[in-house]
């Protein structure tokens, strides 16, 4: 139809056919118009539609041109309503836009313009493909939703992550509704965009934290928990890999402990390299800075960060952005977490906050795991100690009732502890303890004092005595008394041993006393018959001597002499036996006094021998003074007895300080003793000479040795035959505060 004149309404009808989805080619053919002309018409039409959104000024001409047949009054009302709606839309803080049926933009409000950073005027007639040119998958998603709407008009809503004006990706909820043209056909859609990024992130953070909490609660060690934690973080937030670094405060280094990455050989190799090295703290580097400052650090591009030592290998593995955050417990930095992304990302405050929250969770977990580990170790030590010990372990509650008894108890004593659980120690009798013993023990427990080696004689499984010794200490929790705990030992063997020893000791003491009694009685009773023999022999001689011949008188002399000597032997033996058993208490004695007394006792012998006696300055010693006098008397007496007949006798009593003891010596210039007899002379009744030469029974030195032995000293002789003798004996010095 060449030359046909097209009015505005007819043009609009044609354009609407196209906006409703009609093919441009088919429309042009049907109406015999050129496609260029059709496009011009459509552009004009769309410009008129969108105009109200650009300007507050109502353009009545638009309506009159677009909607023929509308009365002026209806137009006025419609125009008024439209103006209110237009102003409302423009003022909305959420982005709103209009699209035609063919997907071309008809207009948008100011919020949309700001949200996407696009000039709404120039964007009219363009499509979503141009809005998301850098993110085709986003554009495709929108187109898909639009197609669905055209097919089945109405409203739709869907969520989509979209890039916005600053390049960041926002989570959007998109509402779209179709609108119809004057002919009632779908003419386009109006869309509103609600930014739900914050809500989404809150949900995401909650999800991550929840997942981390679950992983930590199911793990015993940090090492077991961390790969899962890293995975949860990376998977949820789209980061490529993560690692945990531990800080060894003692060694002053830090080390990569656990890592996680999605299957990628290059990243795995990068993480493996991280794990193999130990680093020293400093200012440079990602982990160094985190550990040093205790604050998160973000690196936008690892390949461009000079201070990041692992930057190049990370970049080779295809990683770009990185961030790390401290694992803290209060002010203490326990380690760090790091994450890498394949893309170059700007610092994300939200992400960092989420990371710090997880770091805190891990910090608490590490502290708990460490405490639990220490507890386990301490328990293991305790178990191994109680396992190795022959002692058992027990516990009592605050009422002193037995609450626990380790298995060692039944192993050691054969007694089943079960009946005693819940009972008090004094609920069962102990053969060795009286009521007052128990009362004292109870009082001690009520004072919450520790007690040591409390011994009880109980009845064992076989009916025999079992001796138990228990030691306990009070247990307090929060300063509140909770009971007692302690150990116990089976001391039955020791007690039996002690009993055997006691019997043996009593037996020995009795036997000693008996021997002493025997020595006394024997010597006493032996003397009576001796006296009879001696006395009556002499009486015979006295009365009837003149009737006997010389031989008879000589025989009788031998009888008397024998009896006399035997009496002396008995007396000496008695004296010897009394040194050990009838001695007096040891006390401080001035040795000078003892010497003077001995010399007085020896006065007759000294005068007759014309002895010359000298001595050193004598100390005070600890001794039985009677026995000490006897000792000196015997030694000096011997010196007198065994003097040389042709030489003036000289005796010297010397003293030598020998550390803990005194060393005394009685030296003479007498006949001396041959070395082979040095030992023998100290034995009872051992003599080196006949009684004709030197009288005596041979008891003197034996008594000396016994006296010195009793004083815990030593006695010996140093002599050269013919050149005198020196008898040496030692005595302990007086100890301060005791004897």
């Amino acid at each position: 139809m060449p030359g046909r004149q097209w009015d505005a309404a007819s043009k609009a009808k044609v354009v609407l056919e196209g906006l409703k989805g009609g093919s441009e080619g088919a429309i042009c053919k049907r109406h015999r118009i050129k496609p260029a002309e059709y496009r011009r018409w459509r552009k004009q039409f769309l410009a008129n539609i969108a105009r109200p959104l650009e300007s507050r000024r109502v353009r009545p001409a638009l309506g009159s041109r677009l909607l023929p047949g509308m009365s002026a009054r209806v137009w006025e009302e419609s125009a008024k309503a439209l103006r209110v709606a237009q102003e409302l839309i423009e003022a909305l803080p959420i982005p709103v836009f209009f699209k035609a049926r063919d997907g071309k933009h008809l207009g948008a409000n100011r919020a949309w313009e700001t949200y996407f950073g696009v000039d709404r005027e120039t964007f009219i007639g363009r499509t979503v493909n141009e809005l998301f040119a850098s993110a085709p998958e986003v554009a495709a998603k929108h187109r898909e939703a639009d197609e669905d709407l055209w097919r089945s008009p109405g409203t739709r809503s869907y969520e989509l992550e979209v890039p916005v004006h600053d390049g960041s990706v926002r989570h959007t909820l998109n509402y779209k509704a179709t609108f119809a043209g004057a002919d009632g056909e779908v003419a386009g859609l109006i869309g509103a965009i609600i930014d739900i990024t914050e809500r989404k992130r809150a949900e995401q953070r909650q999800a991550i934290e929840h997942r981390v909490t679950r992983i930590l609660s199911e793990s015993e060690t940090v090492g077991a928990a961390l790969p899962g934690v890293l995975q949860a973080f990376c998977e949820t937030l789209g980061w490529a890999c993560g690692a945990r670094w531990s800080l060894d405060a003692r060694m002053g280094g830090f080390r990569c402990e656990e890592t996680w990455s999605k299957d990628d050989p290059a990243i795995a190799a990068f993480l493996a390299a991280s794990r193999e090295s130990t680093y020293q703290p400093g200012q440079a580097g990602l982990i160094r800075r985190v550990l040093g400052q205790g604050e998160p650090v973000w690196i936008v591009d690892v390949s461009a960060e000079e201070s990041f030592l692992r930057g190049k290998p990370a970049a080779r593995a295809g990683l770009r952005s990185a961030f790390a955050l401290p694992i803290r417990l209060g002010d203490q930095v326990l380690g760090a977490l790091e994450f890498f992304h394949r893309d170059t990302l700007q610092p994300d405050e939200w992400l960092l906050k989420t990371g710090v929250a997880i770091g805190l969770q891990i910090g608490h977990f590490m502290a708990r795991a460490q405490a639990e580990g220490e507890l386990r170790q301490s328990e293991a030590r305790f178990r191994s100690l109680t396992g190795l010990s022959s002692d058992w372990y027990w516990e009592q509650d605050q009422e002193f009732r037995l609450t626990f008894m380790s298995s060692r108890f039944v192993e050691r004593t054969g007694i089943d502890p079960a009946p005693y659980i819940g009972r008090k120690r004094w609920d069962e009798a102990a053969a060795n303890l009286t009521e007052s013993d128990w009362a004292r023990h109870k009082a001690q427990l009520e004072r919450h004092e520790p007690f040591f080696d409390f011994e009880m004689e109980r009845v064992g499984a076989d009916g025999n005595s079992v001796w138990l010794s228990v030691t306990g200490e009070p247990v307090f929790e929060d300063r509140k008394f909770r009971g007692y705990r302690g150990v116990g030992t089976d001391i039955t063997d020791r007690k039996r041993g002690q009993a055997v020893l006691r019997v043996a000791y009593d037996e020995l003491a009795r036997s000693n006393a008996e021997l002493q009694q025997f020595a006394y009685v024997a010597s006493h009773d032996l003397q009576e018959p001796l006296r009879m023999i001696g006395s009556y022999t002499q009486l015979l001689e006295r009365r009837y001597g003149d009737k006997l011949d010389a031989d008879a008188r000589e025989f009788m002399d031998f009888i008397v002499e024998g009896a006399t000597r035997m009496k002396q032997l008995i007396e000496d033996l008695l004296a010897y036996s009394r040194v050990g058993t009838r001695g007096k208490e040891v006390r401080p004695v001035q040795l000078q006094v003892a010497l003077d007394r001995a010399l007085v006792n020896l006065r007759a012998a000294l005068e007759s021998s014309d002895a010359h006696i000298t001595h050193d300055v004598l100390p005070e010693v600890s001794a039985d003074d009677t026995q000490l006098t006897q000792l000196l008397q015997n030694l000096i007496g011997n010196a007198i007895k065994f003097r040389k007949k042709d030489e003036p006798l000289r005796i010297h009593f010397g003293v030598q300080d020998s550390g803990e003891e005194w060393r005394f010596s009685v030296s003479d210039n007498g006949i001396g003793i041959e070395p082979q007899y040095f030992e023998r002379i100290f034995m009872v009744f051992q003599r080196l000479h006949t009684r004709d030469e030197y009288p005596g029974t041979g008891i003197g030195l034996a008594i000396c040795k016994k006296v010195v032995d009793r004083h815990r000293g030593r006695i010996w002789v140093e002599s050269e035959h013919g050149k005198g003798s020196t008898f040496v004996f030692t005595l302990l010095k007086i100890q301060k505060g005791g004897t």
Partner: protein
Amino acid sequence: MSADMDRVAPPVEILLVEDNLGDARLTREALKEGKVYNNLHWVKDGVEALDFLHKRGKYEDAPKPDIILLDLNLPKKDGREVLQEIKSDSRLMRIPVVVLTTSKAEEDVLRTYTLHANCYVTKPVDLEQFIKVVQSIDNFWLTVVTLPNGK
């Protein structure tokens, strides 16, 4: 019984408490050789000695002894007990007691001392010595013990 007829004084009444026949006989023999005119009364144990001193039973007519020779080791009641009773009885405590012991054992000596014996004598094996002892008792009696009579 010695018969020193030169003496006109009444005989010294001696109580010998001695269980050993031999010792008793020796004492008697020794006294025979002494100078003192004496009546020797011999009892064999402590119970008899106290009966004698308290004039009980068959000793109803016994004289109060001028001196007691007391052996320590006696049957029934030993010398120590006898000595204790003598010394705690106001009628007997002034009688001089010579304790005869078998050994020089210190213990005997000490015990006797605490019991206030007037004298102690160890019985020697040698007869000569014993005679000297008995004679010393003679002297003792003549010099010290006669004093109360001389008042």
